[in-house]
């Protein structure tokens, strides 16, 4: 059976890619006997979920306006120049 260290690497990889059937079987087998790894996997999933929420939130219109006035003016001027050019 794989170790917790190997299982943790596979849990992490499963958040980014599809595991091979052998990897999935090894991870499932380990998880059946290791509540600690099941708990640790939930924590990595929480971090994963929070990151996605964070990115979505920063891109939504609900967040506070942060574009500084001088930066806004420069961007508008640059865009206007490009439109005319």
């Amino acid at each position, binding site marked *: 059976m794989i170790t917790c260290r190997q299982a943790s*690497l596979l849990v992490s990889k499963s958040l*980014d*890619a599809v595991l091979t059937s052998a990897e999935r079987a090894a991870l499932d087998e380990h998880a059946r006997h290791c509540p600690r790894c099941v708990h640790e996997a939930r924590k990595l999933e929480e*971090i994963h979920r*929070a990151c996605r929420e*964070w990115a979505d939130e920063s*891109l939504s219109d609900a*967040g506070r306006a942060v574009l500084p006035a001088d930066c806004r003016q420069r961007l508008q001027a640059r865009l206007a120049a490009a439109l005319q050019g």
Partner: protein
Amino acid sequence: MSEDGPVEKSGVESDPATWVERHGDALYRYALLRLRDATLAEEAVQETFLAALRARDRFSGLSTERTWMVGILKHKIVDLIRKQSREKPPADAEALDRIEEESFQGDGRWKNGQPTWQVDPSQAQERSEFREVLGECLEELPPRQGEVFAMRELDDLSSEEICKAMGITETNLWVMLHRARLRLRGCIQANWSEGDAAGGAGSGGQDPEDDG
């Protein structure tokens, strides 16, 4: 499309002159989150608008204008990071990273106590505080590890795109992402507990030997 109707050359719905007002804040907020530098964030947003202007005839309209621009922005951010990486070659931090040894015993079992933090998904304030600590912990990651993690988890780039941008193999990528997550797990455990006000990350970080 009717042949009699006006020819729709572009899928862009809004006048480019209004882009800064429509999308400037959201794009800048995201660029700042990723680059943590106001000048670079402005540069990324400016390059995004200019690239969108050049490519607007090719915008299909299948996604929203915002989504289309965010896609451009993410690649501009990766370009800037890649440029910075070339200018400042990193120390061989990943080879020296001992987070796995700190987390696991020699026989591969977990070494320390399990994380006790929890996030209640129904509590918006709690989730917001958690993200604050997460952000501080992200800044504590070794630079390349942090970049790889952000490209994956914030930018949602594919493993192929990240490997190409960072010049690493896929196996390398899985190891770096795993180490970043182990480090974040420890940092969050040290700096956040359910119901508490967010504490500052860094005071309880796990590894004082991060590269710089």
